[in-house]
């Protein structure tokens, strides 16, 4: 929240290094954590992890998680949770696949329709939370179960008894909107890169990395947009205020209800975006899509410095939080550690990353 514009000097202010000023921002701890994790893998993991293809490989799941985490982070800053986003992925995936495969709609209709339905679900979540004053934790938890259950039932209806709906890839073949939501961007660039030798190639000459997976671009774009909104728009100020102290914000004239409902809609739409991307990529959807993703998104946001109690956090923090999480989850496969230790490793790395981040911040800013 520090807008570093100093107006007058004051003898009551000691000198403060540039680093220390930077570290006061919530996201910069997460960057320290990300650097630590990167260093760790640089020393322990197979070199392949940090080749271009290796980076794309761990960035793809990180980006899918990150899109959710950005939404979750904004909602958390606004003082609420949404535990239904994982189920929303399955639900939106079902709706989208059903639109495309069962109803045969083109993407230009199917995608807005899916988003509209997701927005409706988000509004419902938000409206119940605000109307009743119940904690969003418990309300969205109910929707976690309900949406996942509906996805299962819906899938069975749409497929006559299977839990997997497929054929999406064929159905959208050649649709002009497809490259926006699926596959790799800038293939020409990478093909050229392969020719001139910047991009590694397979034996047959095709580039090892055919392009940048679109989810990574979405992830970056969303992070930038969310950061802009949070730090540079009135709406961003309202998000911080609503989460910081709901009564105080509302007494100061912030339209808290509108802000919170729009945030619920945003998280639902983030989940839908992930659903569309994964369904198009996989060509199918099933009832288990997005399982536990709500928690991973919250984890990423918290690693990135968001407070669970609301009112504090950043989108860039969530960005790096997702990357840390994605890197740790995939990174173990590049190391020689016994895979049985996977969870110990995951937990240990998470702990070390946040401890380090915390330690650095305290050291630098002189807090006690």
């Amino acid at each position: 929240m520090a807008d570093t514009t100093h107006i007058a000097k004051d003898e009551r202010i000691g000198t403060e290094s540039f680093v220390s000023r930077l570290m006061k921002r919530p996201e910069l701890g997460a960057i320290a954590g990300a650097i630590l994790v990167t260093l760790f893998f640089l020393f322990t993991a197979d070199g392949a992890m940090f080749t271009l293809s290796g980076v794309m490989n761990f960035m793809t799941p990180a980006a899918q998680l990150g899109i959710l985490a950005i939404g979750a982070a904004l909602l958390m800053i606004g003082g609420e949770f949404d535990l239904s986003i994982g189920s929303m992925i399955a639900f939106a995936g079902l709706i989208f696949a059903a639109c495309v495969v069962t109803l045969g709609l083109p993407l230009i209709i199917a995608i807005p329709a899916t988003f509209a339905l997701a927005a409706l679900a988000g509004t419902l979540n938000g409206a119940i939370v605000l109307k009743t004053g119940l904690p969003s934790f418990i309300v969205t938890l109910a929707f976690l179960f309900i949406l996942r259950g509906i996805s299962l039932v819906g899938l069975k209806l749409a497929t006559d008894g299977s839990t997997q709906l497929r054929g999406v890839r064929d159905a959208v073949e050649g649709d002009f909107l497809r490259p926006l939501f699926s596959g790799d961007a800038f293939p020409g660039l990478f093909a050229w890169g392969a020719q001139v030798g910047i991009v590694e190639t397979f034996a047959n000459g095709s580039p090892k990395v055919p392009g940048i997976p679109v989810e990574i671009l979405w992830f970056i774009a969303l992070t930038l947009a969310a950061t802009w909104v949070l730090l540079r728009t009135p709406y961003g100020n309202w998000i911080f205020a609503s989460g910081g102290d709901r009564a105080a914000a509302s007494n100061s004239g912030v339209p808290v209800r509108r802000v919170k409902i729009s945030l619920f809609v945003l998280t639902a739409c983030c989940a839908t975006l992930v659903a569309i991307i994964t369904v198009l990529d996989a060509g199918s959807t099933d009832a288990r899509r997005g399982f536990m993703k709500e928690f991973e998104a919250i984890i990423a946001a918290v690693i990135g410095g968001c407070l669970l109690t609301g009112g504090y956090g950043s989108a860039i923090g969530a960005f790096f939080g997702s990357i840390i999480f994605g890197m740790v989850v995939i990174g173990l496969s590049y190391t020689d550690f016994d895979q049985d230790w996977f969870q110990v490793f995951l937990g240990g790395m998470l702990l070390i990353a946040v401890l380090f981040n915390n330690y650095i911040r305290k050291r630098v800013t002189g807090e006690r």
Partner: protein
Amino acid sequence: QNIVVVTHGQANDPFWSVVKNGVDKAAADTGATVEYRAPETFDMVAMSQLIDAAVNQEPDGLVVSIPDADALRPAIERAVAAGIPVISMNSGSDVSADFGALLHVGQDEFDAGRIAGEALAEMGGTTAICVNQEVGNVSLDLRCEGFTEGFGGTVEVVPTANDPAQVEATVTAALQSNPEIDTIMGLGAALVGEPSIAAVEAVGRAGEVMIGTFDLSPGFLEAVSAGTAAFGIDQQQYLQGYLPVVFLAMNANFGLVPGGNVPSGPNLVTQDEAAMVVELSAQGIR
């Protein structure tokens, strides 16, 4: 009649949804009232409580899977003591008779894994990964164990989560860091098999790495018939759901019961049959 089926597989698990379809078909065919119950996660304590709940309603027959003999023993013995005919299915063939079950329909996870391992070793595999999406789930762990024994070569168990993107990235990572790997064994077709195919393509080793998986999914079967994947193991779990219910209905009506266990699999679906099976798989029958 009133028959209850209690298993350890969730209704949204692709494998178990086929079992449930078998159960539903049997219910329709026999006219019996059949209820399918399962705990929300792999949870033996919860499963034994579901069995107790079933026994309290004194049904005319009970079908159970037995992934943990110790944990489920008291509940099953209580059912038998209460005079309810019990048939075990899927797992637990070794203890089924001890507990007083009439018979067992199914195939042991360990045996299925062993057969898959033997098949892949025969096809020339030497270094394999067994991709497990739910480490700690005993029935999945057993598949990997059996596979390790049957395969004979080096096998590493790779843990992942219930997320295709993550599975793909993890398998890619494993392939990138260890070029020796020439065999991938997945424990689920849609969740692990299909992303593994994508991963192999991503590292440019399509055709060099053999991919086998438990269970079937249409997408995977298409890959099998196209030759990019080796085989899917079909336990014919539709039968595991269908037969016990039919047997118990027969038993309730006429006192008829088969004289021994029914092995439902394993059945390797390879390139030749894959194309035929795709449609059935899409309908949740195989």
